[in-house]
């Protein structure tokens, strides 16, 4: 049930498989839903060369740990996983992975989406995009650069 903060690129598909092998019992879960948020190379009007994801390290970790716990309490899961980048991120790189394992499909779908919606609305991260026209903080009322 871990939430992992990373300052380097990661392969979400390798992480899912490693987590399944280490933490889950084969034949026990029947449903795995995963979401990967990837940095896009365009947003609003400007082309984005890269971005910096600032966070509040202790609070971010605390928030995501608590979110995993809440998610496991709320849905009938075998387990769930969050991985989130911070620092410098380039287009095409994964920013976030949420995944949820359960016996039946509804809880895994619902839990995976719950993790993302809570994370998007409350986890203390802030994106600054570096574009051809300079730097800018991403605002909530804009379409985010990736989802």
């Amino acid at each position, binding site marked *: 049930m871990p939430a992992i903060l990373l300052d380097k690129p990661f392969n979400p598909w390798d992480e899912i498989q490693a987590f399944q092998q280490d933490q889950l019992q084969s034949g026990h879960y029947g449903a795995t839903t995963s979401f990967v948020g990837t940095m896009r190379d365009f947003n609003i009007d400007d082309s984005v060369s890269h971005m910096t994801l*600032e966070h509040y390290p202790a609070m971010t970790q605390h*928030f995501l740990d608590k979110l995993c716990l809440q998610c496991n309490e709320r849905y009938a899961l075998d387990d769930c996983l969050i991985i*989130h980048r911070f620092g410098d991120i380039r287009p095409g790189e994964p920013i*976030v992975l949420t995944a949820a394992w359960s016996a039946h499909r509804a809880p895994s779908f619902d839990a995976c989406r719950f993790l*993302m919606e809570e994370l998007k609305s409350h986890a*203390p991260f*802030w*994106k600054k995009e570096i574009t051809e026209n300079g730097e800018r903080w991403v605002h*909530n009322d804009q379409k*985010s650069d990736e989802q």
Partner: protein
Amino acid sequence: MSITVQFFASLREQVGKQQTTLDYESPTNVLTVWSRASDGTTMPDNTLCAINMEYVKPDTMVADGDEVAFFPPVTGG
């Protein structure tokens, strides 16, 4: 009592500081901490406040040793 204050992202840039420590002799709340820590800057409407890593409202009282944080709406994920 001693209060640590942190600012993040665009608020850090607006206020011009990342962290400061304040001393109080009488009870005070988060909004008052903001005013003193930000040198009187008006708090933007959408500012989020946290004490010791938990979200709180601006009228929440602070206690000795608290870490108070101010930041704009989050944009992770």
